[in-house]
């Protein structure tokens, strides 16, 4: 199903604020609301617990009720987090932002160009390229990452930021989304008109297509950013020294310290975990509109 079809279906644009007649039965309605409220509590309480835990000192963390506050030590925890091992946490944050930000930006541009090429031109091999894009969804990450590690180590790229950035540039799912969006937003007639007016193909892409694809591009960027921010197997494999680590790898390492060397960093891990959600939350709230279309579009894959 494509967006176009969805749009042309009259009932897809549906009931605005009209309650379904299911709401007729009051008891039934109450049952639904109770069910949904319980599910919401289940969804939210771990996040609540994390926020509360980040405000406690060690004693409070181990001895007070986990779901309520006990003293206010958030600033102490943050200071500890930022100064531990000469501020390595800030370095990991910067790395994560660099990989997710720059990698996704480059990847999105590349994906938009590719998606546009696939959607609006007919050239030999087009179907093969698209088949590769879709087929790659089924490839397990280990099958790519391990040989990639070996190839990168042969050209001296392991343990450099490039080992994370370059794989982020090529994202088949982004290409797929970009193709779907192009099909929905760029009419052939417009391209014809631009050509008749004498615009070159590059110019058409940069000044017409990219502008019309702002929404699609934002969604592609958002999903790629989230993916890279959440990545674990790739950075674990290709980044060896802690100076290049991402937040995820750093937190993973800290959480294992307790059994490895007896240093209990639980408090730092929890405060760090809370902070690592913040950029995601900001991104998601700021780009809420795009994110919704993106989530549902993922379903149409």
């Amino acid at each position: 199903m494509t967006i176009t079809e969805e749009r042309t279906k009259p009932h897809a644009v549906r009931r605005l604020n009209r309650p379904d007649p299911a709401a007729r039965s009051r008891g039934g309605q109450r049952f639904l609301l109770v069910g949904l409220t319980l599910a919401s509590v289940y969804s939210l309480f771990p996040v609540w617990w994390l926020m509360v835990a980040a405000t406690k000192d060690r004693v409070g963390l181990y001895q007070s009720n986990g779901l309520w506050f006990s003293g206010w030590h958030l600033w102490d925890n943050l200071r500890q987090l930022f100064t531990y091992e000469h501020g390595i946490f800030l370095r990991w944050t910067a790395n994560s932002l660099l990989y997710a930000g720059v990698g996704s930006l480059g990847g999105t541009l590349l994906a938009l160009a590719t998606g546009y090429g696939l959607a609006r031109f007919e050239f030999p091999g087009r179907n093969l390229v698209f088949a590769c894009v879709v087929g790659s969804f089924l490839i397990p990450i280990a099958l790519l990452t391990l040989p990639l590690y070996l190839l990168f180590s042969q050209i001296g790229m392991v343990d450099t930021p490039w080992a994370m950035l370059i794989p982020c540039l090529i994202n088949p799912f982004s290409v797929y989304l970009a193709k779907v969006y192009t099909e929905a937003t760029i009419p052939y007639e417009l391209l014809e008109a631009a050509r008749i007016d004498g615009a070159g193909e590059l110019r058409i892409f940069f000044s017409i297509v990219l502008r019309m694809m702002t929404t699609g591009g934002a969604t592609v960027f958002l999903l790629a950013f989230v993916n890279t921010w959440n990545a674990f197997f790739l950075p674990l494999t290709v980044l060896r020294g802690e100076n290049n680590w991402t937040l995820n790898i750093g937190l993973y390492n800290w959480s294992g310290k307790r059994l490895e060397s007896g240093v209990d960093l639980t408090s730092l891990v929890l405060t760090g975990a809370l902070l690592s959600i913040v950029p995601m939350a900001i991104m998601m709230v700021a780009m809420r509109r795009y994110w919704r279309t993106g989530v549902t579009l993922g379903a149409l894959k």
Partner: protein
Amino acid sequence: MTRSLRWKGAAFTVPFQLGFAFLYLLPIGYAVYQSLYREQQSGLGLGGSTEEFAGLDNYQHGLTDSAFMGSVLRVVLFACVQIPVMLLISLVLALFLDTLTSKVAGRFRILLLVPYMIPGVVAALVWINLYSPDVGPLTPLGKVFGFDWNFFAPSMVWPSIGNLLTWHGVGYNMVIIYSALQGVPRELFEAARLDGASEGRIALSIKIPFVRGALVLTGMLSIIQMLQIFNEPALFRNITPQTVSDSFTPIMIIYNQAFNAGNYHYAAALSVLLALILGVASFLFYRLTAREAE
């Protein structure tokens, strides 16, 4: 479309094609190549090692390796329980949302989507600490009700991970199913109600068949992810290495073979095997659900 225009269009895709060749096709080819060789220590191991053609030996070894096949079986069994439970909860919540006004539904949808915004590693870290007998609130809570939970006990590790994955995945799957429900023509409900159908009956006979495609899709995505599960068990292993072994899931074995045992050739063969298993599983699932639909 003129000839030159075709080539200009193809040019837009060239950077991606080059990248895809380097980052996808080349590594896969390299993995297949490596899987056909093995390392042979020469002399006392001082003279380094040489590569020797091994044919399909690595694959044969993999298929008879009880640790690897056991981990595949473990993950498949787990998937057979966790995925249906998660999808059932998602479906029920989506059906609930669908009967509310869009304003109220929108609010609940945001609340239920909060876990999806949490990075997977962070979600696992949070739940591990919730489960922890030292800092987590769940152990004292269990005591109040007379349970003596140990979430890291061998029999509890999978349920613990299952709960974590369900918590993390329900919102996303619910949204997909919910948006499919939005496409059901409302007139159908009116007609069914006039015929005296109850709301439950409408859900069962109209809504659920209508979102079948969305269920198949979310099921498929979940299977693909589940066979590759790595992050959650790896983080659990940090805390309880005694219950979560280093050969708990297929990818953990592959990682260990490559980086701890230094056996890239065998790791390559196992990752090709895993890709084949993934392909077969997806194909079977697709065929099975497609046939039922007819």
